[in-house]
């Protein structure tokens, strides 16, 4: 008993006050990218070099855009361009309500500043959220998670939302054990051929109205497994997706920000 109390005292209160107080990410974290306009520092050749180096073919050299749905945030383009063309900021607010919104031209940089304050390259998620979802699920949101060939990194960073630091349930959001109890399904992984039916059956078992959330590069585009005959090219080829949360894996704060902005 005494040990229990002493541990409790030592552990203290760890719950973050996010979103009231912002959280700063360490400098090596790669979040929303900025892309510099064509200029002497960032010529078209450099854009080509970035596109060629990108292992995920996420960088479009002509349009100077990054598809965050394919991007695995490995930082290769940033290294190749020595941060002069592509720079990943520490902003973890990466999620969008539409697939095409994930193809970003890194507008923050176009405004002249290559800093985090201007990282707003993505359309504001809260404004694009379906308003009836907010009304329905704003106070209570029950999530059913399906790992459909996810590598357990996205799963782990969703699961961690229930630990004391994030404490998801203080927002009225919980993971539930049955699709019958769920308002939204959270899918991770590239949806392998062998998980296709189970994914669809789970979705069908949920009562309407229901939301679909794709977490991670795999669920959005197939991720690193794109091109394998054993996986799909993303959840959208199977189900209507309402919320896209990119990353490899998506950081827990990216997940939390997305859930709060979209549903609350």
């Amino acid at each position, binding site marked *: 008993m005494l*040990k*229990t109390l*002493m*541990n*409790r005292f*030592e*552990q203290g209160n*760890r719950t973050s006050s996010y979103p009231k107080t912002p959280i700063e990410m*360490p400098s*090596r*974290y*790669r979040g929303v990218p900025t892309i510099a306009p064509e200029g002497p520092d960032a010529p078209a050749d450099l854009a080509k070099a970035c596109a060629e*180096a*990108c*292992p*995920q073919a996420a960088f479009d050299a002509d349009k100077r855009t990054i598809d965050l749905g394919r991007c*695995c*945030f*490995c*930082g*290769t383009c940033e*290294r190749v361009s020595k941060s002069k063309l592509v720079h990943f900021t520490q902003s973890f607010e990466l999620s969008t309500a539409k697939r095409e919104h994930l193809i970003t031209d890194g507008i923050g940089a176009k405004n002249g500043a290559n800093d985090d304050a201007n990282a707003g390259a993505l359309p504001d998620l809260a404004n694009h959220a379906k308003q009836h979802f907010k009304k329905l699920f704003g106070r209570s949101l029950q999530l059913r*998670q*399906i*790992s459909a*060939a*996810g*590598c*357990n*990194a996205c*799963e782990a*960073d969703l699961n*961690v939302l*229930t*630990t*004391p*630091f994030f404490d998801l349930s203080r927002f009225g959001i919980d*993971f539930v*054990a049955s699709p019958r109890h769920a308002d939204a399904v959270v899918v991770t*992984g*590239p949806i*392998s*051929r*062998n*998980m296709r*039916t*189970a994914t669809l059956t*789970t979705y069908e078992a949920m009562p309407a109205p229901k939301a679909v959330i794709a977490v991670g590069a*795999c669920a959005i585009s197939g*991720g*690193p*497994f794109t*091109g*394998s*005959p*054993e996986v799909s090219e993303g959840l959208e080829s199977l189900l209507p997706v309402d919320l896209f949360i990119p990353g*490899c*894996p998506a*950081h*827990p704060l990216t997940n939390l920000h997305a859930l709060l902005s979209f549903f609350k």
Partner: protein
Amino acid sequence: METKFHAITNGEAIDRNDIPHLPFTEFRDEALALVAEGGKVVQLFGTAAVDGALPDGALPDGLLPTIAVMRLEDQLWVAATDLPETYASLTQEAEVFHLFERELAEQFGVTPEDHPWLRMVRYHPNYADRPDVFGNDYAVDIPGNYSYYAVAGEEIHEVAVGPVHAGVIEPGHFRFNCIGERVLNLEISLGFQHRGIEPMLPGATAGRRQLLVGTIAGDTSAAHSLCHAHAIEALALADLSVSTPDQMVRTAALELERLANHTGDLGALSGDVAFLPPANYCGRMRGDLLNMTLWFCGNRFSRGLVVPGGVGMDLEPVDSETVLGRLTELKPQLEHVIDLIFTTSTVRARFDGCGRVSHEDAQHLGLVGPAARASGMDYDARRVFPTEHYTQIDVPKCQPFTGDVYARARVRADEIIASVALLQDLLPKIKSTKSTAVQDHALAPSSLVVTLNEAWRGEVSHCVLTDAQGKIERYKIKDPSFHNWNGLAMSLRDTGISDFPLNNKSFNLSYCGHDL
């Protein structure tokens, strides 16, 4: 011991011509002789090119070139043979070949005769365009023609769980045969996570390969990336020798991964016996440990940190100082929570004697990692086949254990304490590192390399074969879970079905690492 197998070294490339090619019967006898001496299988796989685009009849004369890598004490052995379309299974003599032979049958359509449990492993068409061993039509959904082990009798009932489980976890199917609450047999059928990684790797660019090996099992990114890096470093024609500070960072990455996962597991085990305070504390501390990896490389799962030739980041002394500071702060908390778990009588009452796997069974199944050490097998690749900075580190031998949930938890706790001490010693020595770019390297032609590292779940091994042009012909991956799933099934024998979650957590195996 005398064997016709050829001795090789962890992480050193050899010419393919140096691999002894044995007639099948001799290969079989020699492999079984190694097992009889206490040897274990590291790899057993068909070496026909697997790149997702095999032409018809890819196997010359219908024979499947096959390589076995065995380990006996501190030595690795390799030999090759040609497997005919049907051959006398090795599993009927030694259980350690069980899943490897099933995998061979699934990947290349060769039938091991008298295999005691010939079933699919991952449910996909074979790579050799041969008739399917299992008679499956892969247009039909999983599980296809899979007949589960069934127990007959009036009071026998079956419980089927999955593929989608109740928590935030990966998919798999568990089939229990029970009498009342007592489990007579558990059969685990996987494959739902199959992404086809092995066929993707030979043709992938270096950049894509780096992403793929990092996602074989996302929670074991550092270990798989390290095995991949060792393989490429051994095969590359250019000099890719790794500097001492880089080796230290890579060692630290592997230990942080071990720490984070073991801490999470202890919390989950505590949660499963309804002792919630440590469950919460460990969940939070696991996050702190992941954030240390985030500090080093910008990713909580060490993506891009371990790359062929070194590390992917420029690190300054301040980085290891920062991580060391956080670890030093966390250390007493970890120790106190561990003490709390193991001195709480309600926890001990549930852990003690639950899901026991005997030393003998563990030997037969060829378990690895903490699960094996809990059953009294002291194999640890860090000590037996040391790489990186482990050559300078005295990894402690674990004490003999009882094989139950308590033992599997205690092994983790001991490894947490040891890892913290190891990191406290290592981190101050790390000065600065220079980042190494991931790029395509010309590889030695006609070579083989086998790499082994001790991940938090046990022995990870990668095996790479190049062709006469120095292109990767076959990339074989083995996650420790491939050895250990049957250990979980064994632990459930004669155990109450309500203790399944506890036993499952005590193994905490990877679905995607198994399914590839």
